[in-house]
């Protein structure tokens, strides 16, 4: 009987999520503005000295990107769960882990990619320059998909075990921390004139690792949530 090919199903999942995002194009603009505003809040709270700003810049920008990911995680599965699309997705005759990867990719395109593209501008606001800006963008390009993938596990677990907010935070934030440290570390070391290769390759390792395991773990968590 009828059965979609893997790539067809994958494309279908991605297309639907992007279509939904395009329905309100402002959605994409929003994650950009969120990052801009939050990044602007720190100078307001901390004060305008540019030396201090440059010092805290990498950390602040990375924390901001992390928060943008965290904030938009709710969009990832909750709506699908509530309106029954998730159970229909689980019944698609293709491995759920692959479909999940499609959803995570769409999520990253909507919420992570704009942040990456915007990061050079934000870096300028904090007085970063030249090569450091490049390192910042590269580290975010490697790091934000990793955050999305790890976050997806947490989002899936929240669906299943209700009110397990604490458990999810306990599970996901510690996993976010290495990414944050390597990411901010890469930028900081480039600022200090030390090479940033070590940190960047660690980020790459994080990416590969989560690509291998996160979709699978997410799929299992989703099946539990649907029981």
């Amino acid at each position, binding site marked *: 009987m*009828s059965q979609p090919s893997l790539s067809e199903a994958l494309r*279908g999942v991605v297309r639907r999520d992007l279509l939904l995002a395009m329905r*309100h194009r402002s959605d994409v603009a929003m994650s950009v503005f969120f990052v801009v505003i939050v990044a602007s809040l720190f100078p307001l709270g901390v004060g305008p000295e540019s030396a201090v700003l440059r010092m805290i810049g990498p950390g602040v920008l990375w924390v901001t990107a992390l928060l943008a990911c965290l904030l938009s995680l709710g969009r990832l599965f909750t709506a699908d769960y509530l309106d*029954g699309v998730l159970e229909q997705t689980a019944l698609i*005759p293709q491995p759920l882990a692959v479909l999940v990867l499609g959803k995570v990719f769409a999520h990253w395109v909507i919420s992570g990619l704009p942040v990456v593209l915007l990061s050079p501008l934000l870096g300028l606001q904090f007085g970063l320059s030249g090569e450091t800006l490049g390192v910042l963008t590269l580290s975010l390009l490697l790091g934000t998909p990793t955050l999305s993938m790890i976050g997806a596990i947490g989002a899936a677990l929240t669906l299943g075990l209700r009110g397990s907010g604490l458990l999810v935070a306990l599970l996901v934030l510690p996993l976010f921390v290495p990414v944050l440290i390597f990411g901010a570390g890469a930028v900081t070391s480039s600022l200090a004139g030390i090479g940033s290769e070590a940190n960047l390759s660690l980020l790459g390792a994080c990416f590969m690792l989560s690509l291998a395991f996160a979709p699978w773990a997410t799929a299992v968590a989703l099946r539990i949530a649907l029981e």
Partner: protein
Amino acid sequence: MFQTVALSGSRGERLLFSNVSVTVKPGTLLAVVGENGSGKTSFLRMLCGLLSPDCGAILWQGKDIRQLKELYCAQLTYVGHLNGIKDDLTPVENLKVSASLAGDESSGTVVQKALEAVGLGPPVHRLPTRVLSQGQKRRVALARLWLSTRPLWLLDEPFASLDAAATSYLTQRLQSHLSNGGMVVVATHQEIALPADSVQHLRLTR
């Protein structure tokens, strides 16, 4: 052929049903009836493979569905209590996406014909589903059946909040599916106006 063998299911601490063995032959419909909370929905979700049974097995063409996995998923269409449609997409977009995900034909004309078959004509099918009424949303979910070429249909209270016209469309569609050798399992509180010889009842008790 589709059958359950000594199936038992429970939710939380409650045993909902035990030792249920039924066989659904091509061209027949199994109506699962029972009071509210008697376990109809749980039974249907178990047949989909979304819920695992306490004991017993579910066989598709004689093979256990836990072994078949994705191959089994390719045989069934499930419409649950939840409509499984996106509020922000129009009925046409919703159907297109779900048809292409199911591997069915998803061209514009086919989809529009399916929507017309459930009475969602030109003005309505281009609105975001969010603004539709309860019954119209249900119709969008059911329109998937007009696109489905799969042999096994599992429907959870498909008639809820439908008006008389929609009820008769759906009944006709079930009839034509059965006459093509399809199999249907329906959980319902209503009578289904189908020839008695093609309908089998399973009554769950609380």
